[in-house]
């Protein structure tokens, strides 16, 4: 008898002590992991956002444009720089640009509305290393509260064409 040949007629046999012990430990641990996932969901400070809205690229471009028109304070390399109050901010991903550049206050809570105008993109804030998927047609609302002043980069980490590696945006956090 081997794993390559048919087993004996009756192979449905009780587990021996070691097998029961191993199975018990493994099952308990699996259950702990499962419960912890729910517990973290309830008590953790940093959780995956779930707020999502449907949109179209045209609609989202319009919303972002009016947001930029309201709070623009300058431009850098052709990309508008905005200084919005705490609350809703808008960020568009398109080949191969994150727009606008956001100037935020340290400690303020901002609701990032992120969407793409063309392909799928990856919203990756560095050096914090927080990563989210950005899809055209969906607004993903990600609530962020900066806790340290400085410059942060937004890197695209979903392949979006030949210029993918050039797609870098910026968040400036001031005191």
């Amino acid at each position, binding site marked *: 008898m081997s794993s390559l040949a048919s*087993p004996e007629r009756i*192979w*449905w046999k009780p587990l021996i002590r070691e097998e029961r012990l191993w*199975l018990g430990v493994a099952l308990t641990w699996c259950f702990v992991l499962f419960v912890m996932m729910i517990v973290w969901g309830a008590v953790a400070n940093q959780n995956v956002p779930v707020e999502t809205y449907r949109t179209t690229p045209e609609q989202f471009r319009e919303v972002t444009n009016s947001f930029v028109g309201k709070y623009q304070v300058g431009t850098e390399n052709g990309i508008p720089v905005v200084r919005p109050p705490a609350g809703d901010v808008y960020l568009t991903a398109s080949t191969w640009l994150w727009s606008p*550049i956001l100037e935020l206050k340290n400690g303020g809570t901002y609701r990032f509305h992120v969407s793409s105008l063309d392909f799928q993109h*990856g919203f990756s804030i560095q050096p914090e290393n927080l990563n989210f998927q950005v899809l055209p047609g969906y607004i993903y609302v990600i609530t962020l509260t900066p806790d340290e002043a400085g410059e942060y980069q937004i890197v695209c*980490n979903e392949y979006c064409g030949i210029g993918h590696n050039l797609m870098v945006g910026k968040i400036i956090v001031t005191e």
Partner: protein
Amino acid sequence: MATEGLQFRTCPVTGFNVHLPAQRLIIANAVTAVVCLLIGGVLALLIALTRWEAVQLLPANLFYRFLTAHGANMLVFWIVFFEVAGLYFGGAVMLNARLVKPKLGWLAFALMLTGAIMTNITIFTGSADVMFTAYVPLKAHPAFYLGIILFAVGALVAVNLFLVNVVVAKMERRFTGSVPLVTYGLVAAAVIADFTLISGAIAFIPAFFWSLGVFTNYDPGAYRVFFWGFGHSAQQINLCAMVAIWYALSTLTTGAKPVNEKLSRVAFLLYILFINLGSMHHLLVDPGLGTASRIVNTSYFMYLAVLASMIHAYSIPAGVEVAQRAKGYAKGLFQWLKKAPWKEPGFSALAISLVMFGFIGGTTGVIQGTLQLNMLVHNTLRIPGHFHATVVAGTTLAFMGLAYYLIPLMTCRELVGKKLASLQPYIYGLGLLIMIEGMFWSGSAGIPRRTWDISASGSALAAPVYEGASFTLGLLGIGAIIAVIGGGIFIAIAVSTLLFGKKQPA
């Protein structure tokens, strides 16, 4: 019966009654698999030497093109062709049975080969620079989708031919009682394969018509759900087939038998029931899903599929230990392990594959599949780090280990370069270990996957500076070189055995 007798030979090594039409199909599928592995391996080297920023070998367009081709050839073509060979072995040869409809097997092979060639040509001519995932609305030439659809249809035919074959073999009384454990594991893999290939059809058939312009709006969120029902589940077929092969290798190299057939078989059943939920791992930080669905799916519904892997992680070493102790290696706690056949490539492949799959691939999969932690790893190099530990160090190495037995058995030729073969799993494993560590550390620093240049030189704004990137990406490059050498040795041994191996009496 007379004509049937002519179609069988008795294998002098294993005693199996080998059905010659099945044997021819096994060889054809296995050889094609190795060719795909060769293509994928050459591309792996070029890609890795591009990600190593100090070298940056390829220009951006070729990097993305080759990365697409590497994914398709390694994750799909090499593995599925080899799995089909394994299915015919487990469903016919191991049961001493005939293959019921060899013609259907050849039809499946023709469809898969046509699909693989079509997809490869489309990619290499630059009409499908969309990555293996082909995330809508990135659009490839229709031939890219059609190729994958043809391949999937062929694979579906092969998988179900195997399932039918097991039933017919039972009805013809080619074996008595239950199927062998290895065949049982392959049946589980085949059931998962059916689910996977149907998901693939749901993702790619609309994509094909969308690329033709029949309709204009293909929802990218829906595509991701369908695609990962195919893309991740395909890796669960690999997992299941790999575990079946682990059992086979443990028997072939040490004479181990399953310590408890019930426990092992229930574990395979748990895979069928729960493992496909893991596809949701890819959507953890996508817009559009609620917390409850994320938790239920990514925990494989209470980690019951993980429990299955824990069972195999117990029963395979336990089987080896029992067999070794019965041979008299019973001194102390570990003499059985010390005296294991470490020079036998099948055994070292089993050991390295099991340890690297379990301790690196499996654990990181569970860790990265945690909701909160997924935000830290999504689309960084940690992801390729995880799946190179599972699919390459795990599945591919196990397949290589089996091939060292399958090729001589099926071709009736002696293995060429046995000394080199006994070193090969160590070289391959070491290279992968270094490469995977490089990927993990890079990913932890935030370095994205699938990008040609992390310095983003030439962009409007400055890119972040990733800590330690030159070191960790260097590890990736050096590890990949060693792994490719190890893979090259395997291919050289397989091809030379096929062509020049000393003929043995059939």
